[in-house]
């Protein structure tokens, strides 16, 4: 799956206006929500859940993100990471986020439990305001 992550990162750079890029499709609201063009990629990873239902068709994760600590899931932005074949559902996703602090939590779901788990502990990540420009380093 690592290879696939790398490939997706490349695709994502070309889709800069997407709020996030993941393995799956974000919901409609998500895809139309344009983020500022100034931003960076944030890689979110988590341990695989051990429920069989999470790791087979109909299962997966939703990676929620917001800009308020302790944000509620209702109406929050998320990226869907569905099962995509193989032993386990992917447990990494790369989000394109605007500068500032973002709060992230992950919910696992299955066909039997589409509402999903209690969300994971929330983690915070701060995207620098001014991304460094690419510059050639001069050598002697």
């Amino acid at each position, binding site marked *: 799956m690592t290879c696939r992550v790398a490939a997706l990162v490349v695709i994502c750079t070309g889709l800069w206006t997407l709020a996030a890029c993941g393995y799956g499709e974000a919901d409609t609201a998500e895809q139309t929500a344009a983020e500022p063009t100034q931003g960076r990629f944030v890689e979110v990873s*988590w341990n695989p859940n051990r*429920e069989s239902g999470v790791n087979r068709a109909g299962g997966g994760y939703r990676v929620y993100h917001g800009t308020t600590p302790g944000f509620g899931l209702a109406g929050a932005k998320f990226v869907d990471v569905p099962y995509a074949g193989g032993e386990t559902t992917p447990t990494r996703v790369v989000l394109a986020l605007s500068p500032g602090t973002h709060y992230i939590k992950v919910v696992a779901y299955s066909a039997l439990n589409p509402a999903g788990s209690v969300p994971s502990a929330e983690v915070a990540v701060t*995207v620098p305001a001014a991304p460094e420009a690419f510059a050639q380093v001069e050598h002697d």
Partner: protein
Amino acid sequence: MTKVCTAVLLALALLVVPARAGERPAAIANAPAPPPVPDELLVRFKAEATAAPASVAQRLGDRLQRALGARYAVMKLESGQTLADALAAYRAMPEVEAVQPNYRYRFLAVPNDPLYPQLWALNNDGQPVEGGTLAAAIPGSDLDMERGWDEITDCTSVIVAVLDSGVNYLHQDIAGNLWDGSAAGFPLHGYDFLDDDNDPMPADAFGHGTHVAATIGAVGNNGIGVAGVCWRAQIMALRIGDRRGATTARIVQAMQFAIEHGARIINLSLGGSEHDPAFEEEVERARRRGVLVVTAAGNEGADNDDGATPFYPCDFPQDNVVCTAALDQSYNRASFSNFGAVSVDVGAPGTNILSAWPGRVRADDLRGWVRTGGWTETVCNFNLGRLPALVNPASWCATPPGTYAAGANDVAYKAFDLAGVRHARAAFFRFLATEPDVDFLGYALSPVGGNPFAVGSLIALHSGSTGTRPIEESIDLHGCFTSTCTFGFRLQSNGAVADRGVAIVGLRIDTVEPNANAYAVLQGTSMAAPHVAGVAALVWAYNPRYTSADVRAALIEGGEPVGALAGITASGRAVNAFGALQYIAPPAGVAAAVR
């Protein structure tokens, strides 16, 4: 919801094809067909029909119950006609295109075991339990098994060790669901730590362990007896005690055996009030080995956490212990069930639990005995009421009582057919008062019939006084497994001092039978624990990557909040099979990094 939706879809599928009476959908053709609703019909109206369905019903003396879309209606038959006559009457109406019975459908994950409808713990529709106590019931107070069984019924990938009084592994409804220990040298599915041999049959015919085992894993959907929480299972039968209980040493040995031979779940429907370091150490070892220990809260109606009445293993602090309180048919705490806001984790059904029994229980009416001398068949007043009794002398019940005869050599015996049994016990209560070490009450057996004191063998002699409380006896009838077995009593006295004598009350013969198909209703937290152990096995089989901590979390977090458990158990929840299968742990180890 799955089943409900399935039923609705089947019903709708039926509606698109005008069905003739008697036609049945193929999907459930192999299930025994329940009769259609006796006083309802489904009517399809012609597209051009102008009369309102209600008026059509009214013309036939019936009532429109509800419309089903534009052209179908459910009619409630109130004219007193038979279903067949009503079908004909509606078919003859000019507005009617077709008419059919309102068929009933079985949910698919409902086993065909004939006693299943009495297993309220698995599906509570308010039913009484034959042989149980009279109890109020609130439908739906159950483990939600039918929804769980839509997902999984087979627990064979998870070995469950039942540390108990042994299991009749030849019982028809258990035989297919036992641990296969052949490769390890245990072909009889476990071990007997009481007799120190590899045969865990309940040699004293005490059925506790058989009952517990079948609650976890009686073969389901086999058309026989009951259904376990697991329809298919691997039960490891470890005999650690008899009707008198178990000991630390045997429990520890059996836990070691279970852990070494691959059990993932240990059911301990037992407990005691002494803190037991050796036992706790073994529970800790099980924890380190990833083995879940499901246990019972105790039957004293007490608070395990009040410091005055601790109860172990329930109170052990290890987090691989799931301690279970008992709930009744309305999901109130069973009056006998212990509780504890810290130590008791969950609740589960524990009253009027019907499950397997190792053989027949033949209650003897204490009539028809062959008697000599002072032996008399009578009825006496006891604190439990008037009960049949076999007494010597005849005046044993009188006030004041008489004394037995000097120089007595009186026998009373009866024949019992014990052909083909594996084990048998005579259980009874004896009141005794004889001149100590001089006058004796004896028991004897004869496999060939007749007076067992003349042609059989003497089993035991008792002398002295039991006081006002009787002694409970359990006599092994080994050597008498014939169709002509006689069992009897003898009162022998010398010529001098005589005393009040003997009364035998509540005699029954308990057997262990190969091919048994016997069942019994029991109450207790002992019955609640195996429901939890069964659900744990189902959850583990469903989620093979789970750790014991995951299984425990699924049992607790996937439980159903129950008011009666709030504040007196750690979770306030009753274990729920569907909830536990549906449970998903919150993802852990979430990390985010700017790239």
